[in-house]
């Protein structure tokens, strides 16, 4: 077995995060490639959530259905996911669930309940968990029933466990089941536990005891039928991080010194991680300090970041759609004042409050055009965790080299998922600050001598002015029409300069067949299902994926070379419109006739993208809308 998919489902707050992290680390320690997504409601606790994990012997980026293993930590998860398990897969539940019925689940949305009940009726399945299990068994699924409380009792007999820490032990049961069936040794699990429960040896010891007992039982009764082959290409070490953390690490490498933020999903976790790293101390070396500033609102977040950049610090703010909507006025001020700031923008389901904990890519045009008037900006986006880390450094470099505001566009799929990521090659990372000067007498901050004027920091040996009004070279207000033309052009023509100077590899990358018959086009998280899908289809088709990283300025000439009319062109995006297709049409005239769209807030899965491509190529369908996944 070289590729394993699993889901652990349960109510929020019950220990799922711990299970996901410990298992990711345990598999990671053995050299496997892991991606673990978290799906959850906009709720603190109680509503259904699940972790969807893929463990493989070589690189995989996306998730897929059906899954080989399901561990249910709640009755709701059983009903929600029973259709997701593969034939011959393993479906694990608590014996206490068996009698429970779907209509008694209060935390399930009524419309979801209706939909599931209808499905169950059509399949001829009764209302109770044990009816579900029987249905699955008839289809070849292996069901396992454990008494979770029985194991807790066993634990309570040996140790004095607190009833206020049940989540710490429930997570252990789920971990044990997965580890046993996949043949992961106890020591790897304990390493993961120790990291997650650091400083709490007592909890580690309790869990070790519990996990060992559950594993003994499972392996004794079922063996390890889901054991993976050894991993290919072993490395020495690997990072295990969420997307938020990957970006934070990139920013720290890139010299971030002031981060402002207002808490919002799915961005806040990046700033919370940075708050732990304010003092950059490694052994006895003092490498500096990052001010992480929680503001009173998003308007203060962007304006304070701009102020910090004016003073010369590498500054950024981190937000999502509703937050960026508030930041737009400030963003425009940064545009007219050529301020190097980075806005890290994690997209979520919109519009308005939308779906706070679900992902989307529907803010592309918003990021490209937000702000009245016209001014130069860079919009770059990342397709996976490794890219996100490196792009975070690039974002600062581009901001300062070209003196423009930069939007680093990401999404919830990357932000909240955990993955094994290679340690970045630090020798390849460079800090490029552009032209920073001391200034001196008669300093002109907006000197027309060059498109990018030498920049002095506030507090250096000069006096300068900034204003949101159109201004002269000193930064004083000017309504002179000749100056207006010169300043306006100076700013906007930076886009041409940026297009010339950014290397192709940072603009767009072609994966797969170099001379393809079919081309998938996308950006951001789409890279993950696209790369996996084209690999799945490479024996059947001559297929490639064009991954666009630089969205503003759009690399039209690069794109034109690849998106030839004689090829089957398919735009893929987590949105209704598939804005990347509209953008390419607008900027280069190329028409992308086929679209794959998904706007449920869940990620595009490898299997549904493969299916969509086949429908388009074989049945000539024009627009395929995907909707799998709860």
């Amino acid at each position, binding site marked *: 077995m070289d590729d394993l998919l699993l889901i652990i489902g349960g109510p929020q707050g019950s220990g799922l995060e711990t299970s996901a992290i410990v298992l990711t680390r345990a598999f990671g320690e053995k050299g496997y490639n892991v991606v673990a997504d978290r799906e959850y409601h906009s709720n603190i606790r109680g509503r259904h959530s699940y972790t969807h994990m893929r463990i493989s012997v070589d690189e995989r980026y996306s998730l897929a259905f059906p899954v080989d293993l399901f561990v249910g930590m709640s009755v709701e998860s059983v009903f929600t996911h029973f259709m997701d398990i593969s034939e011959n897969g393993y479906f694990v539940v608590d014996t206490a669930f068996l009698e429970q019925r779907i209509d008694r689940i209060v935390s399930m949305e009524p419309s979801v309940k209706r939909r599931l009940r209808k499905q169950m009726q059509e399949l001829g399945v009764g209302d109770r968990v044990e009816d579900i299990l029987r249905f699955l068994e008839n289809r070849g699924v292996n069901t396992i029933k454990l008494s979770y409380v029985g194991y807790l009792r066993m634990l309570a007999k040996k140790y004095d466990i607190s009833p206020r820490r049940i989540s710490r032990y429930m997570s252990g049961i789920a971990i044990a089941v997965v580890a046993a069936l996949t043949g992961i040794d106890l020591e790897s699990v304990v390493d993961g536990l120790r990291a997650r429960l650091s400083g709490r040896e007592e909890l580690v010891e309790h869990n070790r005891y519990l996990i060992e007992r559950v594993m003994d039982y499972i392996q004794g009764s079922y063996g390890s039928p889901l054991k993976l082959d050894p991993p290919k290409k072993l490395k020495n070490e690997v990072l295990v991080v969420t997307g938020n953390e990957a970006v934070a690490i990139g920013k720290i490498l890139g010299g971030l010194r002031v981060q402002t933020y207002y808490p919002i999903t799915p961005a806040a976790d990046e700033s919370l991680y940075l708050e732990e790293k304010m003092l950059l101390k490694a052994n006895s070396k003092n490498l500096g300090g990052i001010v992480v500033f929680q503001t009173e609102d998003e308007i203060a977040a962007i304006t304070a970041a701009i102020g910090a950049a004016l003073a010369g610090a590498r500054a950024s703010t981190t937000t999502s759609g509703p937050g960026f909507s508030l930041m737009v006025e400030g963003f425009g*001020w940064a545009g007219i004042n050529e301020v190097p700031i980075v806005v890290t923008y994690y997209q979520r389901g919109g519009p308005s409050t939308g779906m706070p904990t679900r992902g989307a890519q529907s803010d592309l045009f918003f990021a490209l055009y937000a702000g009245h008037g016209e001014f130069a900006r860079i919009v770059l986006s990342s397709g996976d965790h490794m890219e996100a880390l490196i792009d975070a450094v690039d974002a600062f470099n581009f901001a300062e080299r070209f003196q423009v505001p930069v939007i680093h566009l990401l999404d919830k799929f990357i932000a909240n998922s955990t993955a094994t990521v290679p340690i970045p090659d*630090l020798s390849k990372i460079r800090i490029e600050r552009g032209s920073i000067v001391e200034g001196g007498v008669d300093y002109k901050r907006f000197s027309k001598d060059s498109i990018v004027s030498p920049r002095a920091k506030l507090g250096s040996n000069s006096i300068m002015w900034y*204003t949101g009004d159109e201004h002269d070279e000193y930064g004083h207000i000017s309504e002179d029409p000749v100056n207006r033309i010169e300043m306006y052009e100076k700013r906007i023509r930076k886009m041409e300069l940026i297009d010339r100077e950014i290397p192709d590899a940072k603009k767009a990358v072609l994966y797969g067949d170099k001379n393809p018959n079919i081309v998938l086009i996308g950006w951001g998280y789409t890279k993950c299902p696209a790369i996996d899908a084209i690999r799945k289809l490479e024996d059947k088709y001559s297929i490639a994926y064009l991954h666009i990283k630089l969205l503003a300025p759009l690399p039209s000439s690069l794109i034109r070379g690849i998106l030839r009319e004689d090829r089957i062109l398919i735009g893929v995006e987590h949105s209704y419109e598939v804005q990347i297709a509209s953008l390419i049409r607008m900027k280069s005239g190329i028409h992308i006739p086929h679209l794959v769209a998904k706007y449920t807030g869940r990620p595009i899965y490898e299997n549904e993208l493969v299916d969509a491509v086949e429908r388009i190529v074989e049945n000539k369908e024009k627009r395929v809308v995907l909707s799998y996944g709860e």
Partner: protein
Amino acid sequence: MESRNHRWKTDLWIDWCPGCGNFGILTAEVEAFKELGLDPTKTVIVSGIGCSAKIAHYINANGVHTLHGRAIPFAMGIKLANPNLVVVVNGGDGDLLGIGMGHFVALGRRNLDIVIILHNNGVYGLTKGQASPTLRRGIKTKALTKPNIQDAVNPIAVALASGYTFVARSYAFDIEHLKEIIKKAIQHRGSALIDVLQPCVAYNNVYTKEFYEKRIYKLEETPDWDPIVKEPDPEEVEEKVSKAWIKAMEWEEKIPIGIFYWNPHVDSFEERIKAEIPEYLANPPAIQEISDKEGRSIIDLEAFRVLFSKKIIHIKKNFQN
């Protein structure tokens, strides 16, 4: 930069109305800078939007003319990145107490070392004289078609409630008085508010020069007026805040100017950051080195391994499960 011979006003023609109170504020402000011997390259004036905001272009120091209501957060960002700069905010009453009220209060919670000079004229001048948050109910200035139907906020009271540690009021045409208050506010380590009563000749024909000069009296000339908190003692603080509050309510018959409340014992936001980052003041974020001589990140592989050790996993290669 040599500040003794420095000309503190720029050459730009000042386009305020000839009788505007802003001229007084401008003069008092630059005189204060001169007498304190400030370095103009290390001084930053941050303004919002409106007539008052243009002051940033008339003072020959760094000027950041920002967005309506947002001067304070811009100023906070500048100050956080380089706490060794002198940062002064000039803003109008509509700017700072209407659209910008959220930031006005937030600054008090933080006690960042920034001076707020509030140009309080009761109207939105540049947009034709609408009532501002400090115009009282029932007042009908010449530009209003009907008397104002909204009650006013009291900037002194809001500042006291928000945690400002230096709260004062002055008058645009008493340049000596305003200058001295500005000097003290700059020297105070913490958030300072100076509510400057400013006649607007274009639009406010009720709160005029004559109106103010008939009513103004100086707190420092009031016997037993002692606004300074001597000890970090909660009871003394409560007593002095309460007295300041009561003075702040005086308006119709007499209007006090001077220092209402001054507490030098509250730690500033910068000091709170210093507790987290000991070198914060000596080596502020704005000037820290972030790369080595070859242009690589200052975080090398060894430092990377230490900083992110909790996220790094060493792969164990033996495969007998």
